[in-house]
């Protein structure tokens, strides 16, 4: 029993060590050699454009549902006019970035993990390495950069669509014009709401890309490993999103709200 526990902890520690080495290799490769622009653009398209529909629909429903859920409580308190503000603040500060990141973790981290895992199994990564090319630069740096840029963009687009969803729900019960609704939403937001939200999505994107790449790059040989890499990428990336969010909230709170 104790031996099993020790083995488990040792494997965990080895995993942490491997991640640190991978992290340092990743950073070294950013600054050495040329940047793979064409692969980076392709990844931005794959990661950003192809996830837009999913993020859009989810955010729209989220905005709509939030208004439907919030309305009875706020009406009871006599604060129905606060609905656009409440939605805007909650969506922009927290729900939008986190929901977008979780969706991206499910879609992108798993896809990167499976793709790189499959490349590992079919010796494509080894082939790149032994040819003298740099697989880390081509496969990892481009994907991590693409997720770090596209996840914030997706979160911003998701926020706007979510606000539209909220407007639709509100317009069914209350007669409010689009311009008044958006004026109320925007006037309730300030710099301290927007900047931290965007900055933390950059870190969410980095975590999604990095974890996906790490899990795929280090998968074992065998078809089962591809599934394990994809699954593990989603779970680990999702966990990191919540950890980063908790840290970001603390820092934001210290910097802006105290």
């Amino acid at each position: 029993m104790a031996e099993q526990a020790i083995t488990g902890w040792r494997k965990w520690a080895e995993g942490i060590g491997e991640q640190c080495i991978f992290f340092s290799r990743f950073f070294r490769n950013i600054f050495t050699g040329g940047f793979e622009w064409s692969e980076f653009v392709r990844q931005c398209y794959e990661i950003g454009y192809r996830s837009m529909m999913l993020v859009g629909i989810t955010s729209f429903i989220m905005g709509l549902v939030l208004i439907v859920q919030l309305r009875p409580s706020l009406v009871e308190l006599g604060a129905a006019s606060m609905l656009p503000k409440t939605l805007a603040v909650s969506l922009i500060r927290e729900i939008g970035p986190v929901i977008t990141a979780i969706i991206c973790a499910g879609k992108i981290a798993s896809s990167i993990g499976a793709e790189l895992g499959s490349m590992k199994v079919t010796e494509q990564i080894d082939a790149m390495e032994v040819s003298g090319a740099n697989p880390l630069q081509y496969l990892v740096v481009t994907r991590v950069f693409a997720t770090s840029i596209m996840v914030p963009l997706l979160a911003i687009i998701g926020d706007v669509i979510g606000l539209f969803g909220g407007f639709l729900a509100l317009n069914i019960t209350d007669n409010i014009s689009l311009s008044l609704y958006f004026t109320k939403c925007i006037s309730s937001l300030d710099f301290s709401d927007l900047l931290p939200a965007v900055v933390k999505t950059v870190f969410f994107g980095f975590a999604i890309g990095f974890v996906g790449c790490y899990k795929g790059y280090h998968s074992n040989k065998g078809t089962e490993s591809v599934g394990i890499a994809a699954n593990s990428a989603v779970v680990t990336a999702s966990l990191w999103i919540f950890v980063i969010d908790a840290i970001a909230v603390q820092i934001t709170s210290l910097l802006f709200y105290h």
Partner: protein
Amino acid sequence: MKAADQHNETKKQIPAKAKKQDEVVIHAKGLKKGFVDKEVLRDITFDLKRGENMVILGKSGQGKSVTIQCIVGMLKPNAGELTVFGEKVAELNDEELKQLRIKIGFLFQSGALYDSMTVRENLEFPLTRVLKLNDQQEIDKRVEEVLDGVGLLDAIDKLPSDLSGGMRKRVGLARTMIVKPEIMLYDEPTTGLDPITSREISELILHLQEKYKTSSVIITHDMECARITADRVLVMDNGEFIAEGSFKELQKSDNKIVRSFFNQEI
């Protein structure tokens, strides 16, 4: 005349002094490599001379692939000496290893084609990323030339998923050859292919070796491939070489394991 027969003829005609074959390109002495629970290479010693085709025969799991993975720096031996072009592989840093790898071509058992890229993109990859060529005309010329060499110019815009096993091996070979390596390492080049395609691949290996003047290590358990390509055959068993000689010499061997290989060939 078949390429294999031509090769045998050529081998007879070339005078010893005309060959630059005495130069050793790979030198291994007392190589040992083990993993957590198994010692794979026990005591590997061999020299590969320039322009030579050396075949390593052996059953699966005897350490053949591990040997060539050590040569290319994918694995580090636990003990022993391994030099390629006089450089100790285990002591090279990343950049030195990269430079060495440019001189070594490695054909994987599966071909290891990049499946998200077309054949053309697969072949352009080492040119743009390894040799850092920018001139598109030069790139196109080299891609078409090498693809023509393996008889697959028509497949230039196809994806690997549209190719048969033999075609994949040919494209893999073309991708490796496009950077004109000085040493070629073949990991079971004919495994999974029908006898006719296997023979074609073996003859292609020979043809390319003569065209590009490479030295080759060919890992196989395909006796026909060994017969066609080998200048010298080493038989590996349980992590060490148990016999060495030309194909014809080993056919007469008394060693039980060696005989078991040759008895398959009727």
